[in-house]
């Protein structure tokens, strides 16, 4: 059997949790680690995802400010949702929710629908209409 046991075969580092991780030792034993060996910050995956999401939020904000997208899109990114999740929160179909990303459609919505979105994002209707 070929040896695949690189030197850096430690559990990946998590930023927050000491999740129980299993490893496979060279002598054929499986062990359950709870404490971790230290792995430098740059090796962790979590930070990167955070940065990507921050970038997405900022990009969404710019799109809303320049009038390409409606505030629903910005608040969706801000609360870490995606169209499926948001559609379940407001009780509309994903197709409808995606249509409301267009500023022209958004402007014509009924007050009840505004209220639904405001409840989903936990903000007031005023904030929903005028994002910062």
């Amino acid at each position: 059997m070929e040896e695949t046991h690189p030197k850096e075969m430690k559990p990946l580092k998590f930023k927050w949790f000491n999740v129980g991780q299993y490893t496979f030792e060279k002598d054929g034993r499986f062990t359950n680690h709870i404490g971790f060996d230290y792995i430098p910050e740059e090796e962790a995956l979590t930070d990167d995802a955070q940065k990507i999401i921050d970038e997405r939020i900022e990009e969404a904000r710019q799109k809303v400010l320049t009038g390409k997208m409606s505030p629903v899109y910005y608040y969706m990114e801000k609360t870490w949702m995606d169209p499926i999740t948001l559609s379940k929160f407001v009780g509309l179909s994903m197709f409808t929710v995606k249509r409301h990303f267009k500023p022209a459609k958004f402007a014509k919505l009924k007050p009840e629908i505004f209220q639904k979105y405001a409840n989903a994002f936990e903000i007031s209707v005023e904030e929903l209409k005028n994002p910062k």
Partner: protein
Amino acid sequence: MIKLEYEHRQAGHCENGVTSNLLNYYHLKVSEPLIFGIGAGLFFSYLPFLKMQHAPVTSFRVWPGMIFNRSTRMLGVKTSIQTFSDPKESMNILDRILDQGTPVGLQVGTFHLPFFPPEYRMHYNMHNMVVYGRDNDTYLISDTVLEKPVEISYKDLMRVRFAKGPFAPKGRMYYLTSVPEEVNLKPAIIKGIEKTAYNMTGIPFPLVGVKGIRFMSRQMRKWQKKYGDEKASYYLGQVLRMEEEIGTGGAGFRYIYGAFLNEAADVLNQDWLKEISIEMGVTANRWREFSYLGSRNCKKRGKPEESYDFLAGIVYDCAAKEEAIFKKLRKIK
């Protein structure tokens, strides 16, 4: 005030940990890997048409709830599972069952869990934890991802039990109603292995099992050309997160499954399973190699030879190894 003598133990994965700890409360010592294997938890599926968090769904395990259902059924443990439409009623019933001296497992959404750090939040509705006691307004929680038990308020608990979004928990709660004093592990283990081997190699559908791994590997080669650098690296990052970060015990449950085969060999007195467990460990190491090189690629620090083609090659290799393993495991008696 009620506080049961419930032993909190950390685990690699929330559902296995909860099941194992609940059985442990009734003096039935079944380890986490055994629960995972008996429940036939190992799986693979790649669904490019279903996007969550803006990336294709990649899953290294079966449907949530299945491990608990299958493993308890195989062991002859009787359970009760309930969902609710009224939050107040669900909390009343939870109180009543706790007062009878039964620890209760809950399915919750993680986004509003107060003890989860804000940076780790996501709309993930399939987390499991156990309530084992309560005071007036606070509940005692044993969450297997944390080192120590924690407390949560009535209001927060109600909120996370009725989190919205895909796979909403709807206050799902479960507890054990009758536990046999002794269980026969042998048939349960054999059935679990048979089921897993069928799931991985037998299902005639291209997106699941070993075929699914191959399919993902083929798609991975095209990502960069099809979606551009940024999106490709986000997709890769999402696969790695599902593989390593979301409580899998490492390498997409492959380590836990190896540990299970190792224990099963002792229980069944079949030495060939030990050899297969070593093969499984080697495969798991290969998966971890993929996640290491992949995470470097995500951050654009990878060497040129560690391209998507190279990574897809590793995944393809893993598929071949797993196919060999499960073809052998299908012959178990």
